[in-house]
Structures are given as C-alpha cells and as structure tokens.
C-alpha cells in the first residue's frame, strides 16, 4: 500500500518582478524622501529616519493635534520654552543619533568598561589603590553617580517629551540614556570594588550625596534642574552650566587627573566615558542654542533669555563648585589645585558661550 504524501500548506513563492527599475513610469526613480530638504546633497540615514516622524501643525499636519491636555494644549507646543525660533525644525543633532549608532556606541562603551574592570581584577590592581583614594572613591566618586542618574531620569527624559521637533527630542532621549548608563556604570563598578577591596564601604555614597555638606549645593543644583518646567532651560542649564562648571570640574578636573597617581588606572576610563557622553550632548546644545541666538527674528530676545538663565544658574553652579573644594584636599598626592581645575572649567564654559553667541554679554 502506497503511503499517502500530504503536501504541506505553505505560501508559494511567486515571481512578481516588482523590483526597482523593472518598469518605467512617472516617479519610478523617486528614491528619496521628498518632504524635507537635506542639509547636504544627499540625506543622511539620520535625517531620513528622524525628520518629520513627529509632524506638527507647522509642518504637514493639516488637521492639527487631535488630543489635548486638560488645558487644551496638545502635541508639542512651542510655548513650553521661553525661547523662540523662526524654524525649530532647522535643528539637526550633529551626533546624528539613530538606532544603530545608539546601540553600537553604548554597547562598545559598556564592553570597554567591563573589560577595564576585569583587567583591574586580574592585575590585582584594586588592592594596590592608595587607602586615602579609596575613601574618596567610596564617598565622592560614587556620590557622583546620583547626579548623573538624576539628570538622566528627571531632566533629559522629561525634556525629550517636551521639545517641539523630533530631532531635538531624539537628541535628548539619547542624552538621557547616556546619563543613565553612566550612572549605572559607576554604581556597578562600586559593586565590583565592594567585592575586591577589603573593607570597602559600597553604600556610603548615598549618605554622602544626601548629607555631606560638600555635596549639598551640587544636589540642590540637580534638584533645581528637575524642578524646572522649561525644557530648553533644562538643557541649557545642564549642558552649558552644570557640565563645564560642576561635571567637568569633578570628572575631568579632579578624578581623571588624580586617580592614576593613587594606583587607580580603572576609574579614569569609566569617568572618561561619561565625559565623552557629556561632550556629545554639548555638541548638540551648541548647535541648538547657536541656532536660537542667530535667529533673525528672535535672536536678540533669545540672547536676553539665555543670559538671564546663565546668570541665575552660574551663581548656583559657582557656589556648588566652590563647596566641592575640600575633596581636592582629601588625597595623598595633591597634584592638582582646585583653583586650577576651576579655572579650566571656566575657560571651557567661556569657549562654549562664545560658540553659542553669548560671549559678549558675559564679559560686558
């Protein structure tokens, strides 16, 4: 008896000849998104996959926003910042972040950090850390993780909801995960050190952040950022004030300068990753705020608003920076003076302000 072979039910491939160029007809060669003008001759992948995904009534959205908050405001209102632009859509993130770049970049960073920590373990480096430096690590270096986490979760994350274009919001969404990743990188490094260094106090960082007087003005700065409604003010105060005046001051002006001299060649590589992220966000901020100060119609008013923010936030930052000074004295090898670190930060901020067209007002 022959065995009955039952044919499996599967869709049959069909030759359809539906490939590009198989026929010529109107628009058969229209192979680029035609609803925006690319910055250069051809659109980048970043432009293609980011621009106009979030339309607005000024661009293509003919029926307006169809849901609103209780006060009647819908979508991404331009009024959510005091700054004004003739064309918010002009901003493109110079970092050109989209799916592949976000994951490649961050995956490389976490792999590199993981390897560095592991190399330190294999080289028995942690036991050789200078004891005074270990105390600084426990308390101050890991207290820093809170600042990064607070900004990532409660400053950049809500700001990425608020800005009026997809390109601005994307830049801040990426900034948010950079900060969150860096905060986690630090705190998980803390976990590793807790397992590697006898007597290492892996939890004192939180009390330091909450209670140590040297950190309170910095914590106040971060909390003030989370209490700010204006998304552009949040980005400005973070990237143009906090990062150079407090972030760089501590990360680069202190930790990265002194760690190696205390036998620690691992911590600077982790701090460096955070520093690099902050520089990326600063590149975006420079382009955005320059666009706003250059705005033919609103430039002058924007400069006035920005200068107001600068004066207000710089005062808070200077107090926070100076209050951190005692940390510079807690190490054995005093290779860098606080005043030199602060001077470097101030110089960096002046360069930033010059880039965004605010230099004159500052020196005036």
């Amino acid at each position, binding site marked *: 008896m022959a065995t009955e072979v039952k044919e499996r039910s599967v869709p049959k491939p069909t030759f359809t000849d*539906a490939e590009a160029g198989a026929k010529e007809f*109107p628009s058969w060669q229209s192979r680029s998104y035609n*609803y925006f003008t690319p910055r250069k001759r051809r659109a980048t992948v970043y432009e293609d996959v980011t621009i106009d995904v979030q339309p607005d009534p000024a661009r*293509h959205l003919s*029926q307006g926003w169809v849901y609103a908050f*209780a006060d009647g405001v819908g979508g991404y209102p331009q009024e959510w910042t005091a700054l004004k632009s003739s064309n918010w859509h002009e901003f493109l993130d110079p970092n050109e972040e989209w799916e592949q770049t976000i*994951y490649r970049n961050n995956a490389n960073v976490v792999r590199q950090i993981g390897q560095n920590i592991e190399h330190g373990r294999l080289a028995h480096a942690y036991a050789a850390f200078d004891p005074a430096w270990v105390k600084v690590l426990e308390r101050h270096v890991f207290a820093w993780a809170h600042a990064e*986490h607070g900004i990532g979760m409660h400053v950049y994350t*809500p700001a990425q909801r608020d800005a009026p274009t997809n390109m601005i919001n994307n830049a801040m969404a990426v900034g948010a995960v950079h900060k969150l990743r860096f905060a986690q990188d630090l705190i998980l490094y803390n976990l590793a050190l807790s397992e590697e260094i006898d007597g290492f106090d892996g939890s004192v960082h939180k009390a330091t952040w909450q209670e140590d007087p040297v950190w309170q003005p910095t914590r*106040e700065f971060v909390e003030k950022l989370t209490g700010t409604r204006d998304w552009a003010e949040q980005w400005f105060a973070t990237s143009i004030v906090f990062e150079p005046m407090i972030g760089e001051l501590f990360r680069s002006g202190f930790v990265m300068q002194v760690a190696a001299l205390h036998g620690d060649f691992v911590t600077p590589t982790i701090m460096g990753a955070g520093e690099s992220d902050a520089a990326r966000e600063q590149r975006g901020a420079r382009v955005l705020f320059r666009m706003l100060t250059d705005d033919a119609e609103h430039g002058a008013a924007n400069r006035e608003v920005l200068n107001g923010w600068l004066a207000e936030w710089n005062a808070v930052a200077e107090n926070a920076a100076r209050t951190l000074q005692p940390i510079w004295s807690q190490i054995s090898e005093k290779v860098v003076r606080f005043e030199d670190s602060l001077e470097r930060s101030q110089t960096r901020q002046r360069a930033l302000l010059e880039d965004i067209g605010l230099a004159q007002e500052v020196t005036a």
Partner: protein
Amino acid sequence: MSRASITKAHQKIQELSWEPTFVEPVDKYPTDYTFEKAPKKDPLKQVLRSYFPMEEEKDNRVFGAMDGAIRGNMFRQVQERWMEWQKLFLSIIPFPEISAARAMPLAINAVPNPEVHNGLAIQMIDEVRHSTIQMNLKRLYMNHYIDPAGFDLTEKGFANCYAGTIGRQFGEGFITGDAITAANVYLTIVAETAFTNVLFVAMPGEAAANGDYLLPTVFHSVQSDESRHISNGYSIILMALADERNRALLERDLRYAWWNNHAVVDAAIGTFIEYGTKDRRKDRESYAEAWRRWIYDDYYRSYLVPLEKYGLTIPHDLVEESWNRIWNKGYIHEVAQFFATGWFANYWRIDGMDDKDFEWFEFKYPGWYDKYGRWWEKYTELSKKNGHKPIAFEAEANYQYPHRCWTCMVPCLIREDTVMDEVDGQVRTYCSETCHWTDKVAFRPEYEGRPTPSMGKLSGQREWETLHHGKDLGDIMQDLGYIRDDGHTLVPQPHLNLDPKEMWTLDEVRGITLNSPNVLLNEMSPEEREQHMAEYKRGGPAGRPAAA
C-alpha cells in the same frame, strides 16, 4: 550575564535614586490617579550594561537580513498588492512608536517607584529604536521596490491623509491627557499588551506569505522588546489597584482604551491582512481567526480576565462586541471597502479583489459575497480609466460616502450602530455608543460625579472631509502632494497597472467637489437631520444607501 548577576546588579542600581529635599520635581504631566499605597516592584529586571549589547546584537541580525534581502533581490518576489499597503502602514507606525518614547516621562512622573522608572526609561530608548528601524525599513523599500511613489512622501502623506489621521490619533493618545490614562492604560495595558500581537506577529506572517521577509525580521525584533514594556504596564496597573480610589478611573480607561484600540488597529491591520494579501490558501488564518487567537485567547482570557481577582471590572461587553463587529457586522470588510472607495485621496495603489479572493472570503466569512462581492466587481470595473469618475463619485456605484466617527476617526461604517448627538455645540456622529461615551463622558473634567481635572480632551480638526469641504478634488490632491513627478499622474491608483497610459491623472479628478457629510449634516434642520440619520442607519452593507 547570568540571571543571578543581573538580579544583583538590578538591586544595586536601586541605590541611585534619592528623595529630593531642596526642590520638589516639577509636576509636568498631571494624573488623577493616586499611588500613595502602591507596592514598589519592578518585575522585569534590566540593567543598561546588558541591555545595550543585547539590542546591538538584535540590530546586527536585522541589518544582516537587510543585506541578504538586497543581495537575493527579494523584490522580484514581493506582491505589489501587499507592498502598496506598506506605504500606509509604515507611514503611520513610526509615529505611535516615537510617541511611546515621548510618553514614558508621563508615566515616570506619575508613578513614585524608582524600580519601575528604570524599566520605563529603557522602554523610552526602545521606542526610539523602533521608530528609526521602521523608518529605515521603509527607506529600503523605497530604494528597491518597483514603485517608490508614496514611500517617498511618507511622513508628509501620513500627516495629511484621510486614512493616516486615524493612525495618528492612535499615537497621540499616548502623549496627552491624564498621564496614566495615556501612557499606561491606553499605551501599555491595551495597545502594547493586546494589539501588538496582531500588529507585530500576525501581520509579519502575512508579509512573509507575500514574499516580504524583511518586515517580519524588523517587526519581530521590535516585538521582542514588548515583553519588557508589558511588564512595565503590568507593574503600574498593580500599583494602581492598590488604591481603591483608582478603580473607577481604571475601569473608565480600560473601556476607552480597549474600544479605541479595537476600532483603529482592527480597522488597519484587519484590512492589511485580509485585503492586502495574495495568499488565499484556505487553511491560512483569517484576521478573525488571528484575532481570536492573539487578542481574545492570548490577551483577554489570559491577561485581562485574571485582573478580576483584584476586584477590577473588565469590559467583557466591549470585548464581545468587538468580536461581534469583526465576525457578524463585517467591520474589516466595511473598512477595506471604505479605504478602496477613497483611493483617490491617498498615496498608495489599491487593486480590486478577483475570483480567487472572492472564493477565499466566502469560505472564511460565509455570506461575504452577497454583501460585498458586487461592490468589488464594480470597483474593478471602475478602476479602468475610461471616462468615468472615481467610484466614490460615480452614481452608478450606488455608494453613500460615510460619516466620520468623531472619536476614533474611522467612519461610521456599521450603519445601524451610528450615534448622532450635539456635543460641545456641534452635531457629531459616532461609529458606536462607546465612541459617543468616550467623547461625551470619559474625556471630561468630571467623571461619575468626581472631579477629573487631569483628563485630556479630544481636539483639533478631526474630520478630514470637513477640512477639505467644498474644494475641487484636483486641488486637494495637488495641495496634499499626491502627484507623481510628471506633475500630472496621481500617486494613488485603483489598480496595480503601471502602464502610464492606464494610470489616473489630475484630469480625471478635476471638476469633482468634495463635500463633508458632517458639514452638510450641521446645515440641516433638526427634522431633516433625524430623517437623514434614520435613512443612513438603514443603509445596507458596503456603503449602499437605504432603499427608498
């Protein structure tokens, strides 16, 4: 990384948050929900150091498949009927995705639980990933598919089209109004947990059957992130249930969210799966069968019903009515026919159904031919460019252009269920009692006698037809940009024939005036309105006017 070390790492990162004492964080996005009594747990532990390499690996697989598709010339075997609908689908879907990213701070702001914040922040960047990976897929289609027109104007078309607007309201529902209503119940509890099953699992299966294996590659990569998002939603709903005061709001929001998701997602995905396919094997799952499996069994019976044990009233009636609309009231067939009738106002090509399609529909949905078959025969007849108007304006087609539903923005296609009411000083139409309730009762600053000051409202120019009322069809098409690069031939076509001589041009749509049924309705006297609506509700299937 081992599970044990992930758990340890996840526990460690909880040290990062702190209680502010200097400044209270700004309450950007209000909610009427309360969470004082909420338990604080994150059911899905994830840390970024394992998350980023995991996603990078997923990306590498997707991009490897893209390379393979190009090298293997996948487009020699894709069905045009299917790819044309992707011009609509891939226009819409990146917006709900990016809106979901934008929605995350609403939930973070509303829920005082640092453990869940971590999951929500990871979801935020997942959604950025989804939006850009989908835009990139569409870019690849634009570069390699025979007809790039429509893909090339994609995001503009989506923002101004008679159909795209339905999908847009879906995404906007995530980002405005009460933070928990929008970002948790509507987005996560219903859209992601229920309807991504048909969006990202059933639909990719259909794509593969139509020769497109890239859409499944991309969308399964997207879907693999959804389990984390579902966990975020579940943990928040459990937190909300801990406080009795939230119950009425949860029940309100589940009704709104379920019904709106059903109305919009079933309309779109149902049409793509049933009418966009060339795969007519009898044992292939119909949309109704897929819905029964993925939405009814997988979501409703195994996710939603168990919430009853917490004392939550589940909208059983709406779930059953959704099924009733799909199975007995022909919801998807009516929507597909509406899309096809409106072919002139979109940016993709819709071909008619043939005998093979008819046979399949009759097999899957007994009685289908009597209701819809003749109309599709007429569609094919009127798809030829030989002097008549588009089917929507051709008297012999015996078609009555439908009223729009004010709430879900899908037209009122199940005629007998249409509701007319004067709301906010305007006579509006709704596809159903529930959509009427959503506008008139749910989205209001008071609900069942309690103040709900955070609840959002429906806004905007909700009716596409009203926006273009009284304009010449040729002008509308030009204004919207649905013209090919010869400045004359339309992007949309009622057939798949790419012979320039057979393609419809501006000449065939000039001289036709588009009227808004809602404007005309508001111009009627109350008596005329009642009579008109009674007739409309008596109308037959497939847009047939009521018998005299």
